[in-house]
């Protein structure tokens, strides 16, 4: 009976996930452009990847973005959550303000931020000018392209913040009281009570954040188009997913794109595994003594 109820998911899993996964592996070993039949070429696509400078470039861009955006977003989200947890008046209002941008359509957000980060007329540079800081060209120079994306991602960290806030609110008050009795200051309370108690939430956010950063597509595509460069000046905005999209849908190289897909899958799995493994060291599930 149970099988009956979950059968839609099982069917869906096979048709939309497992099947495609296997098919993707097979396709990745062919040359296939949809119009003629696939030609089997073994592991040539993977060999080609190693020599493909754009492959390495897209990995670099995506790693650079992940390395900046994930820690920054998580830390800022946590700080905001902590601030909101202080029993301030109108907390729901502030929470709304911080969470709302995360729900808006990425396409529309991208448009807005292209304009905000406009080197000459955008308000961010105007602000930097007013406080005497240099004004980067953002999406128009290679070095500042990814940082531009990172800034944009900070505006959208509402979801992480809400999750952190929930985790914070689940920390038993007695622990803080006990810490105060032991003479702990603010920092010690944070380090020895807050952090361990929210570490499962942090773990969840971290893994999801990594997966998200490596799947980054919509904004990269829209901003690439919007700045007229396709993928940033000198491909500085060539995120991995964008590269895969180009190979699959602009050049109809389905085989190579599938190989790229598998490479991404393996990389993300590896990173997730690392986080999972390391979690034994720092994630604390209630019930152990630290």
């Amino acid at each position: 009976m149970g099988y009956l109820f979950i059968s839609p998911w099982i069917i869906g899993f096979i048709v939309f996930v497992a099947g495609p996964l296997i098919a993707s592996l097979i396709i990745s070993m062919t040359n296939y452009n949809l119009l003629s039949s696939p030609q089997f070429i073994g592991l040539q696509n993977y060999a080609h990847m190693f020599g493909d400078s754009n492959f390495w470039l897209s990995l670099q861009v995506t790693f650079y973005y992940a390395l900046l955006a994930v820690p920054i977003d998580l830390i800022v989200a946590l700080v905001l959550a902590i601030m909101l947890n202080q029993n301030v008046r109108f907390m729901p209002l502030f929470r709304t303000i911080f969470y709302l941008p995360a729900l808006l359509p990425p396409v529309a957000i991208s448009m807005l931020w292209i304009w905000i980060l406009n080197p000459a007329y955008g308000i961010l540079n105007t602000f930097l000018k007013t406080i005497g800081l240099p004004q980067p060209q953002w999406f128009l120079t290679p070095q500042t392209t990814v940082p531009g994306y990172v800034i944009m991602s900070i505006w959208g960290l509402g979801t992480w913040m809400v999750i952190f806030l929930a985790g914070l609110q689940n920390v038993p008050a007695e622990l803080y009281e006990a810490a105060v009795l032991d003479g702990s200051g603010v920092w010690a309370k944070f380090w020895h009570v807050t952090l361990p108690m929210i570490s499962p939430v942090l773990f969840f956010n971290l893994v999801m954040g990594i997966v998200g950063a490596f799947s980054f597509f919509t904004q990269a595509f829209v901003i690439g188009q919007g700045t007229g460069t396709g993928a940033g000046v000198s491909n500085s905005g060539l995120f991995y997913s964008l590269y895969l999209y180009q190979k699959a849908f602009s050049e109809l190289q389905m085989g190579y794109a599938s190989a790229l897909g598998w490479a991404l899958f393996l990389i993300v799995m590896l990173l997730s595994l690392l986080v999972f493994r390391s979690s034994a060291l720092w994630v604390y599930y209630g019930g152990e003594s630290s």
Partner: protein
Amino acid sequence: MATSFCFLIPLFWLISSAVKPSDQIFVFPQVWIPHPAEWNNFAIALTSLPFGQFALNTLAIAVLVTVGNVFSSAFVAYGFARFRFPGRNVLFIVMLATLMVPGQILLVPQFIMYYKLGWINTFAPLIVPAFFGSAFYVFLIRQFFMNIPPELKDAAYIDGAGEWTIFSRIYLPLSKSALTAVAIFSFQGAWNDFLGPLIYLNSQKLYTLQIGLTEFEGIFHSNWNYIMAASAVIMLPMIVIFFIGQRYFIQGILMSGTKG
């Protein structure tokens, strides 16, 4: 708090830019409150491309996806929550694991599958998968179902009710808040979806709002006032939904994130 003000600035700027007359866009220092405020910009922007059609398309897709997600996920969640069967836990974990699979790897094979089915340039690839249960939503609803006391089900059994009756007459009505959360998330996801429509929809008459906006930008490249106007309107339904269903969004996240 100053930070929240900073967060709101982009939205102020959005509206400010949207109503600027064209000669006030590229002006330095920036004009924050344009005089006169060209509310007409909205009309101009939205009539230059068939945004009405785009809106209808997006709405149709979003509604169907939401219906599909809510019912199929609840159905599957019931299976995971109320029955014991061999492999249940393994399958559940497998389902959760699919959340960590980057979509890109499924992109090509799914596209080829739809191509062979002749579903390219239709709404089908965007709607059909929603009827097969989505891991995140199943998880959310299942957690909720687990909290429904088994005595209710047992009492119904004794009264001669079958599984379907128990599911539809007891569990579903009791889970309204979880189902609403799923509905809201699902609608939002479908409304905001870009990659799906991008690769599956080729004719302009099928475009969704997100694709339409991208095309609009391509045409009106430096008319930031019109682009901001169009963007603002496209964001609007999400803002409305958010304000109405705020607590469902938050609840939904609570139900998933902390149990993660």
